[in-house]
């Protein structure tokens, strides 16, 4: 446990748990290289390493740890990685994921290369690229052992360091006649790598730590049967499972590709100072004009009839394989399994994940939304919630009375009140009137909208009323069907989205800025296009962001999208990735038709009602996971719906006079 390359992992829950698990089920061995077992048809385990882990997402809770092995059978060497079963620290990793990511024995003849990564901080990892060009996801060696892994391979198959990249090891299995033939065809390359002194590959050191390596000789429980490998190879063509595995491999390949490109992009940016822009955020946000110094330089590179640059993420494939399929909405029976006997939600993260992937049935929304909005604490009991409801009802009535008690005479001398009320009067009668819930003359629900909004404008007098708020309240009232509860849930929503409505529009600008940076990160050709076209203010996304896509989807779809966004799973800023996902979905149309700002705005306004919600949410999730920490870095702190970074006055005094 004193691996020199290990960094302090004591605060990593996954690591601690896996260590525990490891010591319970495994025994130490003196040899890391030659420990063997020959119980499986002459198969010999020549290398085994525990706590080799993949990171399917940026969430630590979704990491999957497993055991990596090299197995020799006859003259063939196989690599396999099997995730641990029933590992309590990874309770959130579904069996499905485990099966999905399992690497069943792959012969080294199918491996083209192995890339080794040794970051200064964090774990070493390898990326195994197959001869087909596909790749497995990065395998993180929590307990070290990359060198040993490579050394073991070298003992059994021909492996050389790439002349182009010292961290890439090219695998050529000369046991395989076909591979041998192929290799001999690449003579110039083979010669250049072959001429490299083999000492540059320092296998000698590999055994240094071997006494500290833990090794298990127990492979009884793993369902590997290499002798069936050849049989399976023959059946492959008709095996439906093969299609799945190909998809999975493609997924991995995309991740690898993305990781590579992100790395090179970051490298470029750090030199061209592009990322400095984020640090200068506070300055640039105050200006809504983002100058495009590149525009003139790039202009002449754009041909008249423009071919569309390829999406660096190969987005179509990405969304296909990354985004998990949507589930059916959460229903009452399942909902109760999340509650303990007193009504507490036992595992709020599991609930949020469940809602993220499936949404909530309409009749259950009334129960679930107050949690998602933060009005109810997840660990509150039924009784506490009933009590809160009563207290809050009284508090609501108190605030409501403040404006109700203004007589017509008083109102005549109270211009601000009249104007504010006038705005609300005008907007509630044009909010979702095509819904039966709000249609018809003298609809009581329209009056409720009015009363709640006017009460809110007294509750938060500084922010007041602003157009768009009625759009945000309408679905809440529709779902909760209770004036006071709707009011308080709206208050909670406005805690997150209030900055959208600030006079200085700072909440909007920080979100539009973040979209700019995310597109730059996730689709630089599209970013370049927007730069050329002077579209970097992203005002064409204004309506999307201001009212959370309320006008872009049918009403019931908006409800679904909102509850998905409110889970803040996998990111509280998923809505920004939704923006990027939609733009990417139409990127070839936007670029191919050479849309200018006006055309783009019109095009986007007219997308309303035509966007495939499920597809876009899947895409957004995939983008969010792919972007990882680089994506987080694009989003300035305090960007809605994040709560403001500092306490104090939300709405500075000098603005109050302007804010009606």
């Amino acid at each position: 446990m004193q691996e020199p390359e290990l960094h302090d992992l004591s605060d990593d829950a996954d690591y601690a748990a896996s260590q525990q698990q490891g010591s319970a089920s495994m025994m130490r061995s003196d040899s890391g290289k030659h420990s063997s077992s020959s119980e499986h048809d002459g198969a010999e385990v020549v290398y085994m390493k525990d706590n080799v882990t993949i990171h399917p997402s940026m969430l630590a809770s979704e990491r999957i740890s497993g055991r990596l092995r090299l197995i020799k059978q006859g003259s063939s060497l196989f690599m396999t990685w099997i995730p641990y079963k029933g590992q309590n620290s990874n309770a959130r990793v579904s069996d499905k994921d485990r099966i999905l990511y399992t690497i069943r024995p792959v012969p080294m003849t199918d491996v083209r290369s192995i890339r080794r990564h040794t970051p200064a901080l964090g774990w070493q990892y390898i990326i195994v690229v197959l001869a087909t060009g596909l790749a497995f996801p990065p395998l993180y060696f929590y307990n070290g052992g990359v060198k040993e892994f490579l050394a073991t391979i070298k003992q059994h198959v021909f492996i050389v360091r790439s002349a182009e990249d010292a961290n890439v090891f090219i695998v050529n299995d000369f046991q395989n006649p076909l591979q041998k033939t192929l290799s001999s065809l690449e003579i110039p390359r083979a010669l250049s790598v072959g001429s490299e002194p083999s000492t540059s590959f320092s296998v000698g050191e590999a055994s240094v730590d071997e006494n500290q390596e833990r090794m298990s000789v127990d492979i009884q429980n793993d369902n590997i049967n290499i002798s069936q490998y050849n049989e399976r190879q023959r059946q492959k063509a008709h095996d439906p499972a093969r299609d799945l595995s190909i998809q999975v491999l493609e997924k991995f390949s995309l991740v690898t590709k993305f990781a590579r490109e992100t790395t090179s992009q970051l490298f470029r940016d750090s030199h061209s100072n592009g990322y400095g822009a984020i640090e200068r955020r506070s300055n640039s946000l105050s200006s809504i004009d983002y100058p495009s110094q590149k525009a003139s330089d790039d202009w002449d590179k754009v041909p008249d009839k423009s071919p569309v640059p390829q999406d660096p993420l190969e987005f179509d494939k990405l969304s296909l394989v990354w985004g998990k399929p949507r589930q059916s909405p959460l229903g009452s029976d399942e909902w109760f399994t999340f509650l303990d006997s007193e009504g507490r939600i036992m595992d709020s993260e599991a609930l949020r994940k469940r809602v993220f992937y499936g949404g909530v049935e309409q009749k259950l929304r009334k129960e679930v939304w107050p949690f998602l909005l933060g009005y109810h604490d997840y660990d509150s009991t039924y009784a506490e919630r009933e009590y809160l409801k009563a207290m809050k009802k009284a508090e609501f009535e108190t605030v409501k009375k403040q404006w109700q008690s203004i007589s017509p005479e008083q109102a005549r001398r109270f211009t601000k009140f009249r104007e504010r009320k006038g705005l609300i009067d005008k907007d509630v009668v044009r909010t979702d009137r095509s819904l039966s819930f709000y249609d018809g003359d003298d609809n009581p629900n329209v009056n409720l909208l009015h009363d709640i909004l006017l009460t809110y404008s007294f509750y938060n007098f500084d922010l007041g009323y602003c157009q768009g708020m009625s759009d945000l309240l309408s679905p809440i009232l529709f779902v909760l069907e209770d004036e006071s509860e709707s009011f308080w849930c709206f208050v909670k929503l406005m805690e997150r989205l209030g900055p959208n409505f600030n006079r200085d529009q700072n909440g909007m600008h920080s979100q539009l800025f973040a979209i700019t940076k995310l597109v730059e990160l996730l689709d630089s050709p599209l970013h370049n296009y927007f730069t050329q076209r002077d579209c970097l203010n992203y005002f064409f996304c204004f309506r999307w962001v201001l009212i959370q896509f309320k006008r872009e989807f049918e009403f019931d779809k908006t409800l679904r999208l909102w509850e998905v966004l409110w889970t803040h799973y996998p990111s509280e800023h998923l809505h920004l990735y939704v923006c990027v996902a939609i733009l990417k979905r139409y990127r070839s149309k936007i670029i191919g038709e050479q849309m200018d700002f006006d055309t783009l705005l019109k095009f986007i306004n007219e997308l309303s009602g035509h966007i495939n919600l499920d597809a876009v949410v899947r895409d957004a999730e995939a983008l969010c996971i792919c972007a990882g920490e680089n994506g987080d870095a694009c989003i300035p702190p305090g960007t809605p719906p994040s709560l403001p970074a500092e306490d104090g006055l939300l709405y500075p005094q000098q603005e109050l006079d302007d804010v009606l």
Partner: protein
Amino acid sequence: MASRRRMLLKVIILGDSGVGKTSLMNQYVNRKFSNQYKATIGADFLTKEVQFEDRLFTLQIWDTAGQERFQSLGVAFYRGADCCVLVYDVNVMKSFDNLNNWREEFLIQASPSDPENFPFVVLGNKIDVDGGNSRVVSEKKAKAWCASKGNIPYFETSAKEGFNVDDAFQCIAKNALKNEPEEEIYLPDTIDVAGGGRQQRSTGCEC
């Protein structure tokens, strides 16, 4: 020989929330009126082909959010405007009082090259409401203001009934055209004028 290119005339409609900007635009372009418009968020535009003499133009009519809190967006949308339409509700005094704010805000944000002569048109809308009984801004008062601002053309309209809407937009288009520099109308095939033009004023086009 100079080729004749169809010209784009950009018109911005401004005015307080709920005075009928979206309705006026839809009545003019689509000949439709609905009681169920939603408050405009951000901005949108409609286009309509118009003909003057023997020339065809595309009128691009921009509809913007009426709440002043969104005015900072104007920079992006007002740019390159050829005419600005100021709308108020004849039944709401405040919406008339605010015309001056809208005018000034537009001139600041669009920063036209010749603000003194930039064409505006004022529309007093909703004259149909309550048979005119709830009217609080008289035609005389409105015309006086328009005169004081350099003889801005004034129309009284009802977007709901389609009253005077066509005439108003004919005038709007004409004024937008007046704002266009001559050299953008007749384009020699080989000369790129994308960066040129706006500084010079039209001298020959007196429609």
